[in-house]
């Protein structure tokens, strides 16, 4: 990454809309830092320093080098020929699945660990659902020789055994979250509690574009390397930087944020966000926050959130652990509310079938999260000359068991 910058709002629109975070940490009405006072010094330290640190030439040099030599960037922008033929449109896949550790998550953990080091932190904590962010965090901690503690719901530990083993091999301590529903939401609560109890030496690497300001913006900026690369890669292949559509799946929304970032203010680029419908949006077993959520506060930010009428946070459901989160990042809540992004929900069944289809047509086994995005082609008809760029956020190795059980392989 050569430049991390705020992109000015597109000035030609009748109403100038800014999709970036403002000085107070809000995207429109969403965002902010709703944190207990115990967390204030830590979050404030980060807020005051993150942009400064990210602008330092030595930081950028180290970040760029690690992304290139260690993560393997740039990740390819692959024209999916057979998939395009089948759906009669032009589909490009941004191959985040080819990154080291198998997903986009590492773009952010590399960035945050470099910030943590510069802030003098030597103890790293993280939350994880499926284990991808936990593995990405354990990886960079091993790389930097820092202590790593990963909080993971007890239920997720049981169903994601390979990733738990990976984290352990990488030297991380995996702590089960035993409270609440014992999944990602509770792992996040436990990580936040750890940070309250360790206010001086610890940095919390949040894995998604959620949390109190400056996290959503910081994570988005680290992930923005995705759309930065798409621009020049598409220019090489199609002769233009802007596709007609950018598409990504959304749990908390970090890969989506990175995929959209450099297109937020390009009004000719349409943005599509794919949520997990689970067993169906109206089934009671869903994670489609844009449909089922309303404004509320979760994990330190105001955003769209699945909750009871009484303001208690409810349990989402998706076959994909990475999309199984009751909120979306505040940037996405703003994109949804303003209509800048079109939100669609894909069921477990449709996602799984789309995942298998990609295997058969392109020889790529996608993470089930990414399979949700792929299922859009059955639901939405694109024009033959439309250029659709989709983030293939992760690879499916971690999901083999789920695929095996689903298809009786």
């Amino acid at each position, binding site marked *: 990454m050569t430049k991390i910058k705020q992109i000015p709002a597109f000035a030609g629109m009748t109403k100038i809309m800014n999709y970036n975070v403002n000085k107070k940490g809000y995207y429109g009405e969403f965002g*902010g*830092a*709703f*944190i*207990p*006072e*115990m967390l*204030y*010094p830590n979050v404030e330290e980060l807020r005051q320093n993150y942009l400064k640190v990210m602008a330092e030439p030595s930081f950028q040099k180290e970040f760029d080098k690690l992304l290139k030599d260690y993560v393997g960037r740039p990740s390819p922008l692959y024209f999916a020929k057979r998939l395009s033929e089948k759906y009669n449109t032009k589909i490009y896949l941004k191959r985040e699945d080819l990154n080291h550790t198998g997903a986009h998550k590492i773009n952010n953990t590399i960035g945050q660990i470099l910030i943590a080091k510069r802030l003098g932190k030597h103890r790293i904590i993280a939350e994880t659902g499926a284990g991808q962010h936990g593995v990405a965090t354990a990886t960079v901690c091993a790389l930097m020789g820092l202590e790593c503690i990963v909080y993971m719901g007890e239920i997720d530990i049981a169903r994601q055994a390979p990733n738990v083993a990976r984290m352990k091999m990488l030297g991380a301590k995996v702590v089960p979250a035993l*409270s*609440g529903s014992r999944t990602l*939401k*509770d792992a996040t*609560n436990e990580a*936040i*509690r750890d940070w*309250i*109890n*360790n*206010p*001086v030496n610890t940095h919390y690497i949040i894995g998604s574009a959620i949390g109190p300001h400056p996290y959503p913006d910081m994570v988005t900026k680290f992930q923005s390397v995705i759309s930065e690369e798409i621009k020049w890669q598409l220019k090489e292949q199609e002769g233009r930087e802007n596709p007609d559509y950018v598409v990504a799946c959304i749990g908390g929304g970090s890969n989506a944020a990175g995929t959209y970032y450099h297109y937020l203010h390009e009004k000719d680029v349409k943005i599509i966000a794919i949520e997990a419908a689970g067993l169906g949006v109206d089934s009671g077993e869903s994670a489609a926050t844009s449909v089922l959520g309303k*404004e*509320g*506060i*979760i*994990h*330190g930010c105001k955003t769209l*959130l699945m*909750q009871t*009428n*009484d*303001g*208690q*946070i*409810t349990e989402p459901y998706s076959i994909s652990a990475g999309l199984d989160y009751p909120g979306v990042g505040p940037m996405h809540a703003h994109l949804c509310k303003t209509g800048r992004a079109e939100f669609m929900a894909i069921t477990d069944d449709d996602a799984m079938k789309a995942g298998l289809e990609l295997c058969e047509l392109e020889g790529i086994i996608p993470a089930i999260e990414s399979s949700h995005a792929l299922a859009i082609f059955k639901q939405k008809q694109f024009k033959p000359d439309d250029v659709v760029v989709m983030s293939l956020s992760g690879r499916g190795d971690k999901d083999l068991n789920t695929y095996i059980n689903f298809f009786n392989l």
Partner: protein
Amino acid sequence: MNRINKKLQENKKLLSIYFTAGYPKINDTVSIIQDLEKNGVDMIEIGLPFSDPLADGPTIQASSTQALKNGMTTELLFNQLKDIRKTVDIPLIIMGYFNPMFQYGVEAFCKKCQEIGIDGLIIPDLPVDVYHEEYQVIFEKYGLTNVFLITPQTSEERIRYIDSISNGFIYMVSSASTTGAQSGFGEEQTSYFKRIADMNLKNPQVIGFGISNNDTFTQATKHAKGAIIGSAFVKHVTNEGVDAIDSFVKSILE
């Protein structure tokens, strides 16, 4: 004058007790409050349970989860408390996380508190600046005291700022921790208590987190106007039942 301010003027060290509304049984709320007052407690924090209590340790997490399972809601709590001022005189504070209040509507929530005779609110995840800019006017309109937390890491400048917009007491978190995590105070805490006492703030300080017995209560109140006990009381109620409140309060005040 607000009951909290009146109480703070009394020439004694104050014991404040937190309990989770709707725990252990859904209808225990009123009798717990009455018993606490009867046994000489000075002030009560009524915990409005939340699904994701970030600042709380395992004890209060568990009591909150159980209270919600029992069916506790904001509306039900207000119903339970509607006649509380017929029998209880000491200051009552609702302590809870912001989202349930936000969903109820902050103004509607405050209005209801005033109708019932709630004197103040403690909302750990409502930041000082958001309160100051968006909600202070509403709280003041309904005569509610908002109580802010400070910790050993809070800067002097920020403590002064918090003091300037507080109108009751300052909730001093004894150490960097979630609730119920500490046992006993060391030198570090004592010097923090002294440091804050020496700042001569306009609002008195009440210390919470880590107060669990007569010893810690005495240590804390040496340097502050009072102390708040939460997890230790919830634990006591869990183990001994709601009929044993007198023995708990006695053990603290001895």
